[in-house]
Structures are given as structure tokens and as C-alpha cells.
């Protein structure tokens, strides 16, 4: 390795310092929450916990796992991620395939693409949207978390562009072998587009897991909240007024702060787990999305 010049060494030192500070600012707040969730309540209240658990304890996790509201909302989130992702992906593929045909083999394609793109450009706003969901009687059902976002037009365009980049001969040879559109789509287009589909799938799942606004506004009863919406309400609660007597006894080991921290960690857990492994898909996905065609 050749010797670095003085200026270069200074630059690298500064560069590493800046990047290390940045990385810390991105990771440390979260590590602090993790440490808080794993510490005992007196240590947390005394402000002793920074980045490492003090008086290691799983009491907060045991408490939230026995909390029906938390467990219920966790179940709803699992349900919405599974159902919602399935519906999203099915519709995205079913729309992207016909819209990826050229105008010769699908005459009204341009009109159709416009019908879809227009929904990105203009929408009625929150209140008419809410009224529509109310009118279709979806409020307070799991479908309110799935149907309003069932067609992610942006993903349809992503996949459509991917399909268009595939050679036309694939489709032609499939038709010659006697396959129809349905078979061609599932047996040829989908398997060959797995990289793009996997990326969209990941974004969709993360989106469903993290989304809290729809639950908050479309569910009248908190027992129908998905996890993220439930967490939203938990964070705003700052008092102990809703605790029952048996909870107060628990406060010796756990506190509002440790349980909040534990719930936040569980709320972000799946993403924490998949993130390191799947990061490259995410990166690919956003690069794919920012550079059209």
C-alpha cells in the first residue's frame, strides 16, 4: 500500500470522524431505548441507564406480553401484514402485467395508464376519503387497514417498467406453446421478475408493519388498533391513571418508561431483524424507483 499524503490523511481523519458521529446519532438513541427496556425500573428512574442495561431484567417484556391490549394489537398487525401484503402483491402483479403490454396488443393501454397515474397526481383529500370508507362500511374492520391501500400505484409503475424491460420473445414463445395470459403471467413473468417483486414485497411488508395513521383514524375502538397505532396511543399517555392495583404492585420492578421502551423495541423488532440481511434489496429498490425505466 502506498503512503498517503499529509492532506489526504487529514481528510480521512475528518471524514471518519464525521461519519462515526453520524452513525452514532442514528443508532445511539435506539440503543438507549433497548438498554432502557432491559433494565430495572429503579435504575432507569435514577437515570443510570445510557447504552448498556443496568440491573438486567426482562420484567418489562414479561409485563407487556401479559398485557391483552398489546398482544391483541400485535395479532392484528400480523393479520394485516399477511393479508395486506397478499392483496397488494396480487393486485400489483395483475395490474402491471396488462399495462406492460405495448399499445398494439392492448389498444386502450394509454387510457388505462392515465386512469392510474392520475390518482397519484390528484386526490380528494382526507375528509372525502374518510367519508368513502365510512360509506363502504369498512370502519372498525380489518379490511379498513387493507383495502384503502390495496393498489400502490407507484409499485405498479415500478413493476410495469420491469416487465417492459423483458424481451418480447418470452411472451411470444409462451403463447405458441398454447399458454394464455394468466399462465404466461404466473409461469414466465413473475418468476423472472423475482428481484423486483422481492423488493416491492419488502417495502410493502415494512409499510404495513409501520403504518399507524390508518388504524388511528379508521378504527373507532382501540381494541381494533394494529400495533403501531396502539404504540402511538401508549406514547402519548404519560400518567399512571389507567393502571389497576395489581399493576401498581408491579411498579417496583417495571415502570412506565421501561414498558414503553420494551413496546417500542417490539414494535421495531421485525425491521431490526430483517434490515441487516435485506438492506441491499432496499437499496436496489429505491435506486430502481428513482431512475425510471
Amino acid at each position, binding site marked *: 500500500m502506498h503512503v498517503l499524503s499529509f492532506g*489526504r490523511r487529514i481528510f480521512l481523519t475528518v*471524514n471518519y470522524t*464525521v*461519519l462515526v458521529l*453520524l*452513525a452514532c*446519532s*442514528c*443508532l445511539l438513541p*435506539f440503543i438507549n*431505548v433497548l438498554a432502557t427496556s432491559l433494565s430495572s425500573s429503579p435504575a432507569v428512574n435514577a*437515570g443510570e441507564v445510557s447504552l448498556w442495561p443496568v440491573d438486567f431484567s426482562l420484567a418489562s417484556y414479561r409485563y407487556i406480553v401479559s398485557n391483552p391490549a398489546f398482544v391483541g394489537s400485535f395479532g392484528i398487525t400480523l393479520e394485516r401484514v399477511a393479508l395486506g401484503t397478499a392483496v397488494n402483491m396480487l*393486485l400489483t402483479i*395483475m*395490474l402491471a402485467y*396488462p399495462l406492460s*403490454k405495448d399499445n398494439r396488443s392492448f*389498444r386502450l393501454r394509454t387510457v*388505462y395508464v*392515465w*386512469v*392510474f397515474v392520475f*390518482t397519484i*397526481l*390528484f386526490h*380528494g*383529500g*382526507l*375528509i*372525502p376519503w*374518510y*367519508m*368513502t370508507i365510512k360509506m363502504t362500511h369498512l370502519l372498525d374492520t380489518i379490511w379498513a387497514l387493507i383495502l*384503502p391501500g*390495496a*393498489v400502490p400505484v407507484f409499485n*405498479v409503475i415500478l413493476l410495469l417498467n420491469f416487465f417492459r424491460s423483458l424481451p418480447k420473445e418470452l411472451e*411470444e414463445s409462451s403463447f*405458441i406453446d398454447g399458454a*394464455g*395470459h394468466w399462465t404466461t403471467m404466473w409461469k414466465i413473468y413473475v418468476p423472472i421478475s423475482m428481484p423486483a417483486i422481492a423488493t416491492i414485497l419488502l417495502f410493502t411488508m415494512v409499510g404495513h*408493519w*409501520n*403504518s*399507524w*395513521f390508518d388504524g388511528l*383514524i379508521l378504527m373507532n375502538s382501540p381494541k381494533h388498533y394494529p400495533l403501531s397505532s396502539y404504540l*402511538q396511543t401508549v*406514547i*402519548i399517555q404519560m400518567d399512571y391513571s389507567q393502571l389497576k392495583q395489581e399493576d401498581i404492585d408491579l411498579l417496583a420492578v417495571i415502570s412506565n*418508561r421501561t414498558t414503553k421502551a420494551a413496546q*417500542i423495541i417490539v*414494535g*421495531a423488532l421485525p*425491521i431490526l431483524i430483517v*434490515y441487516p440481511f435485506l438492506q441491499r434489496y*432496499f*437499496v436496489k429498490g429505491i*435506486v430502481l424507483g*428513482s431512475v425510471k425505466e
Partner: protein
Amino acid sequence: MGSKFMTHKPVRRSLFSDFRKQKYLFILLLPGTLYLLVNNYLPMIGTIIAFKKVNYVKGIFGSPWVGFDNFKFLFTTTDAYVITRNTVLYNLVFIALGLLFAVAFAVLLNEIRIRFVAKFFQSALFFPHFLSFVVVGYLVYSLLSIENGFVNKHLLSVLGKDPINWYNEPNYWPFILTSVHLWKSVGYGTVIYLAAIVGVDASYYEAALIDGASKWKQFTNVTLPSLVPIITILTLMSIGHIFYADFGLFYQVPLNSGMLYPTTLVIDTYVYNILTSPLHGDLGMATAAGLYQSLVGFVLVLLSNGLIRKINKENALF
């Protein structure tokens, strides 16, 4: 591929078989289209609420028409000015600083030659993007809370200053919200610009080195010019969305604290607050505010797309 087949095929393909095949394409499109009609086009019709005086007994369709009264009323309040100003100014600052930091960090990351270390930094920077604003709101709260917040308890007390009740002081929030936004989103921009920088033809840099260009000269004369197209496109796209605010950021991070409204209320949170207020507030006026946002937003997207088209047709959305 059987060439015998192919020579005959184009002639044999009749209009009828075309239609037969297209029929299946339509069937594939049907569920998604029906869905869009209900979920996206029906609310567009629903914007008529903006021209009505909503009466709960008579229902939306039975409520009386009031023409542009809701809009007139909206624009005579100071709310309209405050929410427009906040939405647009925050977005402008976000666009400018977001661009600056994302490009800077991408260039810095590109200088790290050890692959593993570079990957680690990129992952760390990109990480906040995947946290929901509920989690981010909690992280900010654990920094700023009056009783236990890190800033009050550890920073200000060490400096000998009085604790600050952050959630009651609107003056600080332009800085707080801007920092939180950058913290959460700069990693995303960095990834995009880094991909663009890595894609620059290495021979440009070799040529620059032969000419004796310093690192800084290489940046201004090679890296930056190659980034200009993607910077232009992404910036114009963001300008097209300047009338839309990030609801999670403006609602969840200030915890919707009423004291902070002068510097945190944006069009999106304004409409939401009216909808969810116990008495439902003035729905007609809130719908009018939403429609005002949609219409101006629509015009801005068209304008920015037109500009993108002029610069590079390939990159235009339509």
C-alpha cells in the same frame, strides 16, 4: 424459436384473436380498476363537501350548497396563512438541506475504500428511514421530555441552565423538526446519490488525475456535473410535492401539542385535527382546505413535470 411459425404468425393474427386476447387483459385489470373507482375516484366526487354547509341530519348529499363560502371563510382566518406558510417553508428548507447533506455524505462515503466499513456507515445512516414515526416520536420525546428527557436532565443541567419545556415552546420547533426530518431521511438520499457517484465512469477521474486535479477539483468538475441530472429531477419532484407535508413528522413528533401550532401546524394536520375533533369542527371548511391543497399540489406537479420534460424527456413521469 421456430421460424416457420413466425413467418406466418403476423398475417394470421386477426382482429378477432386480438380482441380475444385483450379480453383477458381487461379481466386482469378489472379488480384493480373497480377498486380505484371506489377508493380514489369516489373521494374526488366527495370534494363537493367543500361547497356545502355540512348538516349531519340531512347527510352530505342533502346538505345545502354554499358556493365558495367555505373557501372565503378559510382564507379570512389566519389559519390558512399559517398552515400554507409552514407547509411550504418547511418543505423548502427540507429540500435544500436534504440535498446538501445527502450529496455531501454520499461523497464522503465514496471516499471510504474499505468496503465493509463503508457498508456499515451506509446501513447506519439508512436505518432511521425504516422506523415508523411513532418510534421516532418516542425517541424525540425521550430526548426532550421535561421530567426525564436527556437534554433537560443531562445537557442543560450540566451547563447550569434551567430545563426547557420543549413541548410548550414553539420557537424551537423549526430547528427540531428540520433536524428530525434530516435525521430520518438523509440516508435515503445518500443511497441514491452514492449509487449515482459509483456509476460515474472511472476514466473521467483518471483523466482528471493526469491533469493534476485535486480532490476538490475532481468533485466540482467531475462528480458534481455527473450528479446534476439526477439532482435536478429529484429536486423538481420534491418541489412538485411542496404543498404536501409529512403527516407523521408534523403530528407525531410534536405530539400534536396545541401550544406548538404556530410553528408546527401544516395543511395535513390542520385537516386531520378538524376531522377528529370531538364536535367534528367545520367539515366543509376542512374539505375546502384539503381541496385547496390538492389543486395547488396538482398544478405544481404538472409544472415540475413539464420542467423535467424540458430537461430530459426520459425522466418525466408522463
